[in-house]
């Protein structure tokens, strides 16, 4: 093999994936770490990587305790309500009590936060959201990470975590390859903070061609947070909790500012409000505790995102689509019209491109909405991710094992999408989680927990062979056929991705089956996934770029497997509008008011599933 092996040794803190979580970790680690060696390994370029690469027009998680706007526990209750109860409330509380200090630093660093001219407070879009001019959000936080890190390795696709050969279940670093040079990179580290991303593109997208790139979550979010941690044997939680988004059709432009700030609203093709008529039947499914339509205006509880999706999906199925966003009223105000456009340019330019291309002027025409294909992630209105320890002063015994945000693998920490059970963290909360993980990782090292790690040459050599195998497969078999992409000996990454997306859609509850699945379907899907996993041994890459796609596909496949296992385990329909278990259509608090936790055996690949108790923040009477 012609590619060089480059070893970076004696790392204390290795940040894998530097989006908002990873940059937060790298930045904060310097404060607690002093002269510890901090290294970032990032698949792209940290100036424009992760889900915020394009920018954001809002920070969706800000308490505003300085102005008495909210307390951390208010946010926990909101997230709990939105997720139908399923939240790690210790982690959520911990994030919420620190997040404002993160946002105040962002402002100091130059991120333009809008102010309400009357109050001088940050301009609120909604109760939790503040409005920003965030085109350069990512370059700004990347700058902070660069100032703290000893080294930044851009363009390294991290494929596997290294494990300690002397002590069971302890992380030892990571390996990957440079997507430009092809060189094999080995990072030996005492701790790893996984800031890699959630998963787009595992369910078949609604778009059929080029538009497949205009996924809601970034196409480069390849589920690597999950792929890496699952294969290291980390316990995962809430992986069934995929998210479906109601967004502007095709462009998937955001609707938050439209609903909350511009006060636009939705209606069916007849111009009718449709949501409320689905609520009585929905209350039957989920119980009055989760959807109390009569008491809702008294309790001020928002209607959970999934339940609003449910109304949308059913209204369309009843033949009264499309659902429109009524923009024609708000857009008569030139100031609001400008905000409406800026909102897209700041974070989803593709939606502006689409409206320009289709002559949709929201001032004169109400644009269509749609429900997206599902996504698997842990920082938006959903909480997939690793089962992590909470903070010492908050967490009950079942949620605490010494170091905040540490997974069940020693020395392996998470931030952002990687941490399970912490929905509604968004950008600011993910950065905050990175900071929390960094402090804890420094403490872990100071406590001597990272001493005596052994990484055998065999482990390094075996992984190298494995990583570059797709190039070898291509070299050996491509000339056996005259040409083209059809070969009996291998599939290419695109072909594998197409197969994954089709089976996820049809068996795991994608848009093509109206988000419906059941035990039989899930079992068939798992069987098909198993053969895909076998075929992945024969995946071929014609060049280094395709090798990147091959390993992204591996992470997506491993994420999907976990989603299947969790969906199969939870025998109820907890989140109608995200997905349905046709064989258990009701929410079942008696048996399933719990968090689901899985572990994949590193040697056999077998999954063990368990229920973990759910703790809620309760006020002292």
């Amino acid at each position, binding site marked *: 093999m012609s590619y060089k092996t480059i070893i970076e040794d004696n790392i204390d803190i290795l940040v894998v994936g530097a989006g908002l979580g990873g940059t937060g970790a790298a930045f904060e680690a310097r404060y607690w770490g002093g002269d510890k060696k901090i290294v970032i390994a990032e698949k792209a370029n940290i100036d424009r990587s992760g889900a915020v690469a394009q920018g954001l027009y809002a920070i969706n998680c800000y308490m505003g305790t300085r102005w008495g706007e909210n307390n951390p526990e208010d946010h926990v209750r909101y997230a709990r309500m939105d997720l139908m109860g399923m939240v790690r409330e210790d982690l959520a509380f*911990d994030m919420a009590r620190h997040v404002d200090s993160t946002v105040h630093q962002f402002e100091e*660093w130059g991120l333009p936060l809008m102010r309400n001219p009357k109050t001088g407070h940050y301009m609120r879009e909604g109760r939790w959201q503040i409005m920003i001019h965030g085109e350069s959000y990512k370059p700004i936080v990347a700058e902070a990470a660069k100032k703290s890190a000893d080294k930044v390795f851009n363009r390294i696709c991290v494929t596997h975590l290294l494990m300690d050969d002397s002590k069971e279940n302890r992380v030892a670093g990571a390996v990957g390859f440079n997507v430009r040079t092809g060189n094999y990179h080995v990072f030996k580290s005492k701790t790893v903070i996984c800031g890699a991303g959630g998963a787009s593109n595992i369910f078949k997208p609604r778009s059929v061609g080029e538009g497949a*790139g205009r996924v809601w979550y970034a196409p480069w979010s390849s589920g690597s947070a999950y792929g890496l941690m699952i294969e290291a044997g980390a316990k995962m939680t809430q992986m069934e909790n995929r998210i479906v988004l109601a967004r502007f059709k095709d462009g998937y432009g955001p609707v938050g500012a439209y609903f909350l700030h511009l006060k636009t609203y939705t209606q069916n093709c007849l111009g009718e409000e449709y949501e409320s008529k689905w609520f009585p039947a929905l209350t039957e499914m989920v119980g009055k505790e989760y959807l109390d339509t009569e008491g809702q205006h008294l309790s001020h509880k928002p209607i959970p995102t999934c339940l609003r999706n449910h109304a949308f999906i059913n209204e369309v199925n009843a033949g009264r689509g499309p659902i429109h966003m009524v923009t024609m009223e708000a857009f008569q105000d030139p100031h609001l019209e400008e905000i409406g456009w800026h909102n897209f340019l700041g974070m989803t330019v593709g939606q502006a491109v689409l409206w320009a291309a289709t002559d949709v002027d929201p001032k004169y025409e109400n644009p269509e909405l749609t429900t997206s294909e599902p996504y698997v992630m842990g920082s938006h209105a959903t909480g997939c991710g690793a089962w992590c320890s909470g903070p010492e002063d908050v967490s009950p015994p079942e949620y605490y094992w010494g170091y905040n945000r540490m997974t069940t693998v020693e020395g392996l920490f998470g931030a952002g999408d990687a941490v399970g059970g912490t929905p509604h963290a968004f950008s600011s909360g993910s950065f905050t989680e990175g900071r929390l993980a960094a402090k804890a990782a420094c403490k872990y090292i100071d406590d001597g927990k990272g001493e005596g790690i052994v990484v055998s040459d065999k482990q390094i050599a075996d992984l190298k062979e494995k990583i570059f195998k797709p190039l070898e497969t291509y070299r050996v078999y491509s000339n056996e056929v005259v040409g083209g992409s059809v070969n009996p000996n291998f599939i290419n990454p695109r072909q594998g991705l197409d197969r994954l997306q089709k089976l996820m859609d049809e068996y795991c509850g994608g848009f093509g089956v109206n988000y419906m699945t059941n035990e039989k379907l899930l079992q068939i899907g798992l069987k098909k996934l198993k053969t895909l996993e076998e075929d992945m041994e024969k995946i071929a890459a014609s060049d280094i770029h395709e090798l990147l796609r091959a390993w992204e596909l591996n992470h997506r496949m491993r994420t999907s497997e976990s989603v299947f296992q969790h969906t199969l385990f939870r025998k109820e329909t907890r989140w109608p509008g995200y997905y349905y278990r046709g064989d258990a259509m009701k929410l079942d608090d008696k048996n399933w008011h719990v968090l689901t936790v899985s572990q994949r055996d590193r040697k056999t690949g077998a999954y063990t599933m368990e229920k973990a108790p759910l703790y809620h923040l309760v*006020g*002292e009477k």
Partner: protein
Amino acid sequence: MPTFVYMTRCDGCGHCVDICPSDIMHIDKTLRRAYNIEPNMCWECFSCVKACPHHAIDVRGYADFAPLGHSVRVDRDEEKGTIAWRIKFRNGKKDMELLAPITTKPWGTAIPKLADIAAPSKEMRNSQLLFNEPKYIRLDEGGLNTLESNRLTLKEGVYY
């Protein structure tokens, strides 16, 4: 598509290759200019468009749902700290120019280098506080929220 590159404007400098989050801007070996090698993995994030010193990169909406004849152009200026957009509709009826700030400080100057800051005390290390806390939480003298301070308990069971 996503992005495409004008033949006469591109000089093959590689800024787009360096910045693309999806690793799809590559240099064509024969023409020595950049192009998008995988349009269906392009998010239309405009990172390359903004990074191109010659405005050689443009975006044509995704072919499976966006008709031809529109234009969204951008000019990002770190020195001025602004981003300027121009949106033209297919039917020519709308032609908008929009300007937004991208930073409030001279680029990169306001971010602290934590290596130069005094190390935290032992007491700070043993607390739940992060850098700049508790000061930065409320910008006053108040402390960190805890279960005790907010009179909360974590209870196992079914609570709404």
